[in-house]
Every structure is written in structure tokens, then in C-alpha cells.
């Protein structure tokens, strides 16, 4: 499936201003096609899913790990089990049903965050530093490992800098391509699954078909390629043609500010 390049996304020449969070949300929303299933976590993925439903994907089937399937995101849940996660949904079940649905191959996209990512898309949300004597104890896997194991294509949404984009993550909480080609399958993870995109404030990245290493696909508006390199702690592959993303449109920003997050909880 290709990412959305809809005419609605074209911005007329002008000077719209937006902040980095708004840019992340708009970029991620464009990666959510209509009539697909997407595993949504709290935070930016939720805002992006809400925006996508209001723009181009009214039947984006949102899936929340504690039991909501097909919620219409009118309001923003502050908790992953909150009422908004099954607002006007098609089903309200429980976590086993949801993750088993993913394990059976029903869920196309999974959206994730993390404190660190490596060139193979492995994510860390467990500890910074040594596991036995951690510098920072982070919350842990939560549903991230399940999403990264079972969804067909996972999309990480992160701020990009050298502390986050590292050669080796301190702890592999959630599987990317692990050590490289064939490693997921060898570990017993479902064939054909794995990281698909990384959306950052600087770029959209993908993965090389053979080496499974991260590839720069597009820069965010006005960001020079050098700035992406300078904020990546490992050798980044580059697509033959690096596109520049079109900036958030007036319509996207209006919906985001006036409907999706009207209380400005996140943006």
C-alpha cells in the first residue's frame, strides 16, 4: 500500500506556521489509508488517526489494545482504555481479543513510539543504560512489543536526534528487523511483518528491501538532508530520489486545531 498523496494535501504557496508536533501528526495521518485497520496507541498516533478520519479515511478502523475496535475519534482519549477508545465503535471487547486479532494477521498498521530506535527499526522503551543498573527506568513494553510482533507494517513516530537514533538501542523492547534480513523469521515472528516507516520532525524514513536498514525517503518541509544526517547516530541509507514532504495544509491544520485537539492537550 502506498502512502496517501491526495490533492487535499497540497498547500498553496504561502506561509502557514505549525509546530513540530502538528507536523508529526499531519505526516502520520497521511500514512493511514481508508478502510484499513490500524493499531493505535495514546498520544500522537491517536491525533493522527482522528485527523485521518476527518480528512481522507472516514472508515479507518482504529484498534485500541484494551478492547475498542472501530472507534470514531471525536474526542481524545487520555488513557488507552478510556471511553473515547470505543466511542461509537463497532465492538468493545478486551485485550486478548484485540491482540489475538493482530496475531491472526488482521491488523495492517501499527503505530509506535519509543525512546530509542536503531537502523533496523528496533525500539527501546524499557531502560536507558545498563538493564541491571539503569540510568533511567522507562515504563516498559506495554503493548508495543505486541504491536511490533504482529501488525503487518509498523510505523514509528519519534522526534529525531542523535540520542534517539542510535547504532544500538540499550534494550530491544519491540522487534524491528532485529539483526537484519531474515532475523525476524528466524526468531519465529510472523513472516512478512516488520517496520515500514519512521515519521519524525525532520524526515520520513523507510527500510531497504534487502538490507532492512533505515533509508531516508523524504525530508520534512524546508529541512536540508544534512540536518537529517546530523541528527542520526548511524549511517543512513538514502533513496535515489529524496522527496520533500508538502507542508501541512490550511485544512489539515484547521481540523487539527479546531476539531481534533480543540482543548490543545497535545499541540
Amino acid at each position, binding site marked *: 500500500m502506498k502512502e496517501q498523496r491526495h490533492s487535499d494535501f497540497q498547500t498553496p504557496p504561502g506561509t502557514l506556521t505549525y509546530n513540530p508536533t502538528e507536523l508529526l501528526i499531519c505526516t502520520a495521518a497521511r500514512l493511514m489509508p481508508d478502510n484499513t485497520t490500524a493499531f493505535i496507541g*495514546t*498520544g500522537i498516533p491517536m491525533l493522527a488517526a482522528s485527523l485521518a478520519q476527518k480528512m481522507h479515511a472516514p472508515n479507518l478502523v482504529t484498534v*485500541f*489494545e*484494551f*478492547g*475498542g475496535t472501530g472507534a470514531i475519534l*471525536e*474526542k481524545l482519549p*487520555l*488513557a*488507552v*482504555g*478510556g*471511553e473515547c*477508545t*470505543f*466511542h*461509537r465503535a463497532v465492538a*468493545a*471487547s*478486551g*485485550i*486478548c481479543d484485540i*491482540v489475538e486479532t493482530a*496475531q491472526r494477521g488482521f491488523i495492517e498498521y501499527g503505530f509506535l513510539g519509543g525512546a530509542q530506535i536503531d537502523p533496523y527499526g*528496533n525500539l527501546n522503551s*524499557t531502560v536507558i543504560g545498563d*538493564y541491571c543498573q*539503569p*540510568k*533511567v*527506568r*522507562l*515504563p*516498559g*513494553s*506495554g*503493548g*508495543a*512489543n*505486541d504491536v511490533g*510482533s*504482529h501488525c503487518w507494517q509498523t510505523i514509528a513516530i519519534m522526534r529525531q536526534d542523535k540520542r534517539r537514533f542510535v547504532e544500538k538501542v540499550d*534494550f*530491544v*523492547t*519491540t*522487534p524491528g528487523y*532485529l539483526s537484519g534480513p531474515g*532475523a*525476524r523469521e*528466524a*526468531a*519465529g*515472528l*510472523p513472516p512478512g511483518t516488520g517496520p515500514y516507516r519512521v515519521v519524525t520532525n525532520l524526515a520520513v524514513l523507510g527500510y531497504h528491501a534487502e538490507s532492512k536498514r533505515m533509508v531516508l525517503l523524504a525530508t520534512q518541509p524546508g529541512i536540508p538532508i544534512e540536518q537529517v544526517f546530523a541528527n542520526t547516530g548511524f549511517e543512513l541509507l538514502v533513496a535515489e530520489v529524496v522527496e520533500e514532504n508538502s507542508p501541512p495544509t490550511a485544512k489539515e491544520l484547521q481540523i487539527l486545531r479546531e476539531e481534533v485537539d480543540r482543548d490543545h*492537550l*497535545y499541540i
Partner: protein
Amino acid sequence: MEVIQSGIGELIQPPDVNAFREWNRAKPKALIDKRMTEAEAVSRFIRDGDYIGTELYGTVRCPMSLINEIVRQGITDLRVAGQGVFELDMLLAAGRIKALDVTYIGLEVYGVSNCLRREVESGRVKTCVEWSNAAIAWRFKAAAMGVPFIPVRSMLGTDTLKYSAAKVVKCPYTGDPICLLPALILDVGLIHVHRADIYGNAQIDGISGFAAEMARASKRLIISAEEVVSNEEFRCHPDRTIIPYYLVDAVVEAPFGSHPGEMCYVYVRDEAQIREWVEASKEIETAQAYLDKYIYGVSNHQEYLEMIGRERLDNLNRMAKRETDERTTP
């Protein structure tokens, strides 16, 4: 089956399914009135060193009135299945957790848990074993099935598995590696529900998290309920029973039992109170002051609610009602 890999994490609670069968056989099946206060339920059914679990995420349908009572009674050295937000933060802040099967302990939109950081980074939580969310729920499911393990395809290839007590084996049917999760049998399960009868039959509205699995994985089960209703309600709608009475040891009537968390269709979460905790939790002293005020400073849940105030609670009800109206009249 050939074991390919064994997680190096401690198996905090061994999956003794035969002992669990004996336990369940001895459990009373009579229809007896199990209503009691939080104080009585906690003192009768929870002991120092027990392995306990709470259900769903800590701001949604979380058994706060029970957790507060555990803290108040000084129960300690607890071993805990760590999938939580607010309620496990209270236990961590009070220093009552010795061992954690941890999947996620954090404050969701408000970020990492400072209490988790302090307790784990200092080593006061002596044992930490890693799992994914579904892994914890599936471990309960295995216990609910009465089998010692369940095969799944989560955690494979990761450090989450390395620091868990899971095993990877070669599947005897497909030949592929598969992850085995040990059943997790709780000494005590704590679940807050929308309504229960005096015997312990329980209904939950909205999503059910892992309530059905955890209830069936608990040796002792304490249910707190927003309201206690007649047994007739259950007899008329048996399809709505998620927890049958014979699993249950205590029924505690606890209106606003999830406060400052939410209860879908009944009340929304109390954002001001949650923010107060987020701020207080940043330092040991301010966290202690919060516990002093809201837990040690009151003698029970009713006094806690009086401190929060009727007006504020009514408002949380009104906001939930408005959401429900919006849902049914789009």
C-alpha cells in the same frame, strides 16, 4: 519439545495448576452474602508477601479504594503483576512492592512514573521481570484455562523476552520457534466493576480489558463495585455476567471506587486530581505528603470522597452523562 531459549528473568510465581485445581475445588459454592468494607476485605484476604494483580489501566476502572486501603493497612513486600498507572504508583510511592512482573508502569500522557524510577533505580524493587501487555493477559488466560503455559508469537527475538521468564521452543507441529508463557496464578486479584450482586456476580460496561481472564486466574478475588444490585438483575441478563459469583471472595460497594480514574458511562476521570499526583510524585517528600493527605489522613473511602467533595464528584458524573448522550445521539 526442544527449548531454544530461556528468559533469564525470575519466575516470580510458579504455575502450579494442580494446586490451583485443589484450591478451586475447596472454594465455597454457596450463595452467601459477601458484602464487606474495604478494610475487612483487605485484612481478611491480603497478606504481606502476596502476589496481587489489578485489572485494566490505572486510570480506567481501577480499584483505587482497595489500593488505598492496602496502603493504609501497611501491607508490604507485595509481588505484583505490573500493568498500571495510578494504582501501582500509590503502592510504589508507599514502598510496598518487592517484585514486579512489569509490562507498563507509567503515567500515559504525563510520561514516565517517577515512583517506578525511584523504586527500580534504587533497587528497592528487588526483582523486575519484563513482559508485553498481551503476555501478562495471556498468562492470566493460561491460568484461567487451567494449563501451565500458553504458546504465543509475541516477545520473540527481543530483550523483553531475554529478561522475562518465558521460553522459546521449537513448535512440535510447525517446527518454527514459538514463545511459551507460564500461567500466572494470583494470590489475590482486585477488580473494580460497574455492578455486582451480594454474592459476587459482576457486570462491566464498555471494554473489559482482561477482567474475565484475571478473575479466573485469582485464588482470592476482591470485587469492588460502583453499585450492588439485586441477584434478579443477573438472572434476567446472564449473558452480561463477566465474573460469576463463585470466583469471588469479597464484594465491596465503592461508589467512585476508581476515583481519580474513570468509570465509563458513569464518571470521567478527575484531571485536576491526577495532575496533582503527577506533580506530587516528582519528589519523595511531596509524594509522601500526598499519601499523608489522601490515604493515611482519612480512615476510609467515604472520608476520602468527602474530602474530594460532592460538587466535584457530581461534575464528573455530569461530564460522563454528556459523553453518553453524544454517543447515542450523533
